[in-house]
């Protein structure tokens, strides 16, 4: 029926053509030629139109003076180690073979700075497993996953991670930072909307930037603020329902926030997810291997069904004490990254010995879930011990292994706050407790966190060491914050 209708239209067109007056045909002919000319002519330029003569251009080129490639850095920048004799600027660290003690600038210290929560950095079993892998595969992979850079160890680690987290699939990256930073732009594209917590870490910020999506920040852990944004979007959607049908929406949050030491209200987030049909991406670098009875992170902590979270990402550089990161979730979501995750496709794969070390770390975590209880006890112990230090307040939950010490009253200038905190860190470092200031790129952070000292809890710290460190910090605060 359709076809015969079209035939009629054709016949009518041919008839119309015959019946049309000559001037009409000529006019149309000219118009067609004009269109063809417009299509093929190259009279326009891709570059801006220029009325400059060649000579003027030469002069402009001659006159142009670029800025220097980089601005000069002041010599006393805290991260430059110009004169190690006078200042403990950038710490030179060396691991010691047996314990959580490290040598900083020649002094043996107890480590309260590395994210080695489970103490696996120095674990004999992990080292031996890495060594046997090294003896089989060598160090490097000499290729991305696609081109003979997939080792059987990688497949084993992905399988183990998926099983550990009780998800369908896991995918590993060779660099912790690149994990969430690649995962976000694999799904969220130009025109999509991402709702992000203001305290989100730098890797998330870079992932968002790479995605070129609309970014809407909500106040840190403020579900009312998030719901307000979601409602606004709902109103917006009703105005243009056709467009709304193709705009993907995501909420990106961290399990434990590295910048604030507190936890995201996951159950409420899941409610909002289904109410407003938004997907949740959860970054768990700090909570994986820490929260929950089996170390499965913030989903286990709250008893949230892990399938309700669309994507979980974490690095393997903290609790697992190896290198790299992973994403896990349902195959429908995760598998997409194998062709679209930039840091996965275009980068050399993780050295097999590092993957092997992560597998052994998972073994230890699975064999002995007790370790997570111990860690939690240590965390609350440190949290308690640091309360009530004059001039310093503890930022973070009692179960966070990475706390912040912040000045109770700022001097008003970030620089002088940083300097004060640095003096405290140096005071402790000289007395054999290794601490560090949290470092940020001041100009790059979307919402720059206040200056703080990081206090990292690990299962290896004994109660005496914790008390010693706490009283040392108190002593330093009393001496310096007067």
């Amino acid at each position, binding site marked *: 029926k359709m076809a015969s209708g079209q035939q009629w239209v054709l016949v009518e067109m041919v008839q119309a053509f015959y019946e049309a007056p000559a001037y009409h045909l000529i006019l149309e002919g000219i118009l067609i030629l004009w269109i063809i000319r417009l299509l093929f002519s190259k009279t326009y330029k891709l570059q801006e139109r220029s009325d400059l003569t060649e000579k003027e251009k030469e002069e402009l080129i001659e006159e142009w003076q*670029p800025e220097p490639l980089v601005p000069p850095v002041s010599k006393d920048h805290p991260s430059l180690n110009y004169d190690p004799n006078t200042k403990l600027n950038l710490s030179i660290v060396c691991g010691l*073979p047996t314990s959580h003690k490290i040598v900083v600038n020649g002094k043996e210290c107890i480590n309260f700075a590395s994210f080695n929560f489970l103490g696996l*950095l120095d674990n004999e079993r*992990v080292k031996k497993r890495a060594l046997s892998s090294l003896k089989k595969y060598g*160090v490097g992979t000499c290729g991305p996953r696609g081109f003979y850079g997939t080792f059987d160890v990688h497949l084993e680690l992905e399988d183990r991670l998926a099983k550990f987290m009780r998800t369908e699939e896991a995918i590993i990256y060779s660099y912790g930072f*690149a994990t969430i930073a690649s995962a976000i732009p694999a799904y969220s594209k130009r025109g999509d909307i991402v709702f992000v917590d203001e305290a989100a*870490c730098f890797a998330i910020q870079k992932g968002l930037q790479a995605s070129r999506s609309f970014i809407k920040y909500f106040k840190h852990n403020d579900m009312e603020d998030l719901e307000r944004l979601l409602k606004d979007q709902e109103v917006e959607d009703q105005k243009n329902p056709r467009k709304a049908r193709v705009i993907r929406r995501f909420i990106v949050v961290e399990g434990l926030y590295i910048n604030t030491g507190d936890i995201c209200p996951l159950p409420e987030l899941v409610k909002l997810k289904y109410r407003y049909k938004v997907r949740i991406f959860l970054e768990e670098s700090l909570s994986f291997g820490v929260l929950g009875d089996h170390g499965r992170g913030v989903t286990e902590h709250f008893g949230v069904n892990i399938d309700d979270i669309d994507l979980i990402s974490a690095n393997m550089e903290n609790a697992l004490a190896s290198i790299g990161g992973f994403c896990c979730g*349902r195959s429908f979501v995760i598998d997409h990254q194998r062709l679209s995750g*930039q840091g996965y496709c275009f980068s050399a794969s993780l050295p097999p010995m590092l993957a092997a070390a992560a597998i052994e770390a998972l073994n230890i975590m699975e064999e002995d879930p007790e370790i997570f209880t111990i860690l939690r006890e240590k965390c609350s112990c440190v949290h308690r011990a640091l309360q009530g230090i004059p001039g310093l307040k503890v930022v973070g939950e009692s179960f966070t292994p990475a706390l912040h010490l912040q000045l109770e009253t700022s001097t008003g200038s970030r620089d002088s706050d940083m300097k004060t905190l640095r003096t405290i860190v140096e005071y402790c470092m000289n007395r054999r407790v290794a601490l560090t200031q949290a470092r940020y790129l001041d100009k790059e952070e979307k919402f720059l966190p206040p200056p703080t000292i990081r206090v990292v809890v690990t299962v290896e710290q004994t109660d005496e060491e914790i008390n010693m460190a706490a009283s040392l910090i108190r002593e330093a605060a009393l001496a310096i914050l007067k």
Partner: protein
Amino acid sequence: MSLAFCKKRPHCKDQRWAVNHYSPLALHSCAFQVQHGTCNGGLYSRPFKESFEETPMLVAVFTYLGYGILTIFGYLRDFLRDWKIEKCHIAREREEQKDFVPLYQDFENFYTRNLYMRIRDNWNRPICSVPGAKVDIVERVSHNYNWTFDYTGKVVKEVINMGSYNYLGFAENTGPCAEAAAEVTMKYGVGVSSTRQEMGNCSRHEELEKLVARFLGVESAMAFGMGFATNSMNIPALAGKGCLILSDELNHASLVLGARLSGSTIRVFKHNNMQSLEKLLKEAIAHGQPRSRRPWKKILILVEGIYSMEGSIVRLPEVIALKKKYKAYLYLDEAHSIGALGPRGRGVVDYFGLDPNDVDVMMGTFTKSFGAAGGYIGGRKELMDYLRTHSHSAVYATSMSLPVVEQIITSMKCIVGEDGTTVGRDRVQQLAANTTYFRKHLQDMGFIIYGNHDSPVVPLMLYMPAKIGAFGREMLQRNIAVVVVGFPATPIIESRARFCVSAAHTKAMLDTALGAISEVGDLLQLKYSRHRIVPSLDRAFDETTYEETEE
């Protein structure tokens, strides 16, 4: 004297190769060279031979036809899947989330579903040995046309590895590098669990950086944990709003991402095409920033040493001349060329006999020639001081694993000769000899081989989509592991196989590989070359970016 030689260039159509074979003369010898139909002034100290034979017309037609048929069948099968006539293996959205906005648009995955899936067995082949000259591959089979794979439990042993970027053969599990790495593993463990700026700056890191600086011949250097991130996390520290980035069209994804994240204006020039680059530079400076017309704060040129898909080598002497003339800054990514080029293995700068101080930012990776992982940046002290304090990587990313650092230190010392042997130097020479041997034989067999004659990256053109899969499989049957690439890594009709020559390949291995390639080449009719080789300069250049100017 200007660089006008790039403009009044006689097209070298009747020449077999674009050859510049002159001693280092000054620019004024230009006229003399133009007479000889060569195009690059006297900037080159060695012959620069690069070829990109034109795609034969018939081959192009059949290639498009192939994609056409695949697309029609793709739609047909999608239709069958929709109507549940064909079994569908695609992972599905959860029932609870069916009414969410779809995570993927349908057309996004059309290519994956209907083209890639058919030949997916050629990628991600798992291996279970050192990625050295020979490699063991885990055997896998698919019972559902590549939707899922099953492992048979068997291993295909001793496959000749033409796929890994193991240029100098440092992917080893024995020998000094592995021993040194093993010792460090037992002493310090593998992880670091902190950033360079917090508690992850080890003395071995600093030692590595001093060695890298010495190796490159620059004042200072810095190492990072991932090659990809070295680009994407440091370019934003070097350029920002109001800056212009000029990027080669074939630059790696990491450079593109870094440029994007920097917030600079990005303009793309034709691959390795100096007229295109000069024109962009000239226009940019003359016109300033769009709309506001303010002068650019700075201009950064991004190029790679060896382009990993084309096998071409950057025209570095010309790029340096241009960057000096126009006061731009140069960022050179030596991911594939460091270790693999130059008489001392020190990359493309060494290859052309240039001064490393003429390159503002020397970037490279440790993944390939050093058999490790990570990347570096080297340059002047002011630059490196700035990066130490402002690199995203130094502030936010976990620092490098120490066994990996040890592998780099040991292998680099070996290349430099600081280990007291000539092993490193021998390997560099062996790689150059292997490259020449392998390339020459492939060319003589009548294949279309892209790229520079000295590049250990050797792309062999396959063109048609069906031949991608066939070539990869036939080669594996003959116990040779090769990399095949198609769209989107290459232009749609320029699918290719890529070989990476290694110093670890013996002549016997190369001969076996060449024999097999020739056999498969006959089987699949891949010997397309008509030996009418068009010089690279005339390729990929059109009127929109090139204008003759009156003088």
